[in-house]
């Protein structure tokens, strides 16, 4: 049996998630034992014209060219994986959706903005069907390996639906709210083993909101901690602005 053909593609993103894959260290050798990487612009020059067994897509969809390109990649891939926040939830690119598109175009390209038509930012699954999601900005390397193994075993991967606090508590970190700092852990999907907080940073909420957040309850908590509501809304919008397209 030949090894599954795997490719990596990027759209609007910083390519940092692909860098996380390239920088995964020793496990990369074992990964290369079980898959054949046929296209991965960040680490190799070769291209592939055929079909893929698995395509990892980093980045969000922000213009017509991207829409066409992701549709073609979807057609050529048996399994499509959204890699990183930009691909899974729109990520920081989603902040564009808070502004008028023309205004945004002018801000970036000046008067020649008309030559660079743009669209509202979308996550990959808002344009084409996605089979697996690897959240995070950047992705958490151990989770990438877990998802890869699930794909190769043909079983689903469930992104934890509970908040980062669950993992953070088991790591016995001092709660950021005890330190007097606002942390997004209570409303952010887990799966990263509270990576940032373990290293003394707050959670920025890069993995997206939990599925069933108690928004009213959270407002009460914010009041108790004297955190203005709009401060938190801004923090949520940093990564979650594309969520509104999920409803339609």
């Amino acid at each position: 049996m030949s090894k599954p053909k795997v490719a990596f593609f990027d759209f609007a993103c910083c390519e940092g998630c692909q860098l996380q894959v390239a920088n995964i260290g020793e496990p990369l050798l074992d990964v290369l034992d079980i898959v054949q990487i046929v296209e991965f612009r960040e680490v190799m020059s070769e291209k592939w014209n055929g079909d893929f067994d698995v395509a990892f897509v980093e980045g969000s969809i922000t213009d017509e060219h991207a829409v066409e390109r992701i549709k073609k990649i979807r057609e050529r891939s048996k399994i499509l994986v959204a890699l990183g926040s930009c691909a899974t939830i729109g990520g920081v690119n989603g902040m564009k959706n808070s502004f008028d598109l023309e205004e945004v175009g002018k801000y970036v390209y000046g008067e020649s903005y008309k030559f660079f038509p743009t669209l509202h930012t979308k996550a990959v699954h808002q344009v084409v069907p996605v089979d697996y999601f690897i959240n995070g900005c950047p992705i958490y390397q151990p989770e990438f390996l877990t998802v890869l193994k699930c794909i190769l075993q043909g079983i689903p991967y469930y992104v934890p639906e509970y908040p980062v606090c669950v993992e953070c508590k088991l790591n016995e970190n001092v709660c950021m709210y005890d330190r007097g700092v606002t942390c997004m852990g209570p409303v952010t999907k887990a799966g990263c083993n509270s990576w940032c907080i373990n290293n003394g940073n707050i959670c920025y909420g890069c993995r997206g909101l939990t599925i069933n957040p108690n928004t009213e309850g959270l407002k009460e908590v914010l009041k108790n901690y004297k955190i203005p509501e709009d401060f938190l809304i801004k923090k949520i919008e940093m990564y979650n602005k594309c969520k509104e397209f999920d409803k339609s």
Partner: protein
Amino acid sequence: MKTEHYRILEKSKITDFLDKLNTISKVAAPVYKGFNNYAFQTIKSAEEVSLKYIPTVIPPKKYFLPTNESLLEFSLGNELKVEPTVEYENLILFGVHTCDIAGIRCLNMVLSDKPKDTAYLIRKKHITIIGLECNDYCDEFASCAFVGAHLPTTGYDLMFTELEDYFIVHIHSSKGSDIIEKTGLFKPAQTISMEELKALREKKSAIFNNEIPTERRYLPDLFDRSFNASIWKELEQKCLSCGNCTAVCPTCYCFDIKENVDLSLKVGERYRVWFSCQLDPFAKVAGGIDFRRERSARQRHRFYRKFRYHIDRYGMVFCTGCGRCSRTCMAGIKLKEVLTSLIRESEAKIWRKWL
């Protein structure tokens, strides 16, 4: 209280004692983490240990029931090979408060019930518990007097009680007496020390008063009347379902079982991780049905697991009064307040019946 079961340790010798313990085996003790947070951690020297501490973020349960524990290893070659695994090591837990000892006793009860949790029972044998009695409340969240966990009863190998000038140490097992011998720092207790210990316990009975306006024996009745109490609906609005209350509880033992294969996809392990009834996926079953969808139902379940169901099954209250759930809850759900609210509502109902 038999004097021959007690020993004396000079306060100045406690660091020597801890350093000697460290030569016997691995030692875990409370360590300060900043911002009034403490954690049980393996220590390298006595200096790291905090003798005065409020309950740690996670109870010492984590040594008995690891947060992530391998259960079996398998390999999928031409034939399936499965090998059960038990993770254990010799460990001395120093400075365990009586509330946390009560928690371990609850776990012992459940995990030695059928089907026996063999890995747990093996691990337990390798752990020595050295208790440290609290002479005063840690903070306002504790309700240890209500459940009777403020005094040492049983469940430890040695129990340290701090008196004015020295520690008086109760030897409660042969493991404990071995440590006394090996460290060689203890003096026999005299009648005067026994009297001082008695005086301390009397002083404690004035400090520790039942924190809840009812008695333990009325709990079954109270909870039988409270399934539809209004407080559960209030908790629906408050609770964020972060699962902190269950993660820090010394008597919660629910787990999820997962499997992990290595990158050869042929060798792997089955392991268990702590899980919580407060989390969304906990009661979700095939077909996407969730039989405890409302946060109110999940919180109610938590309270019934502490104060009702286990009384029938084991004759024990599964709350140790450590106060961790109240201390950690961002939404400010406080165990003492919830119980008080249940009592008030149920009293009102009873009065209405009479009038």
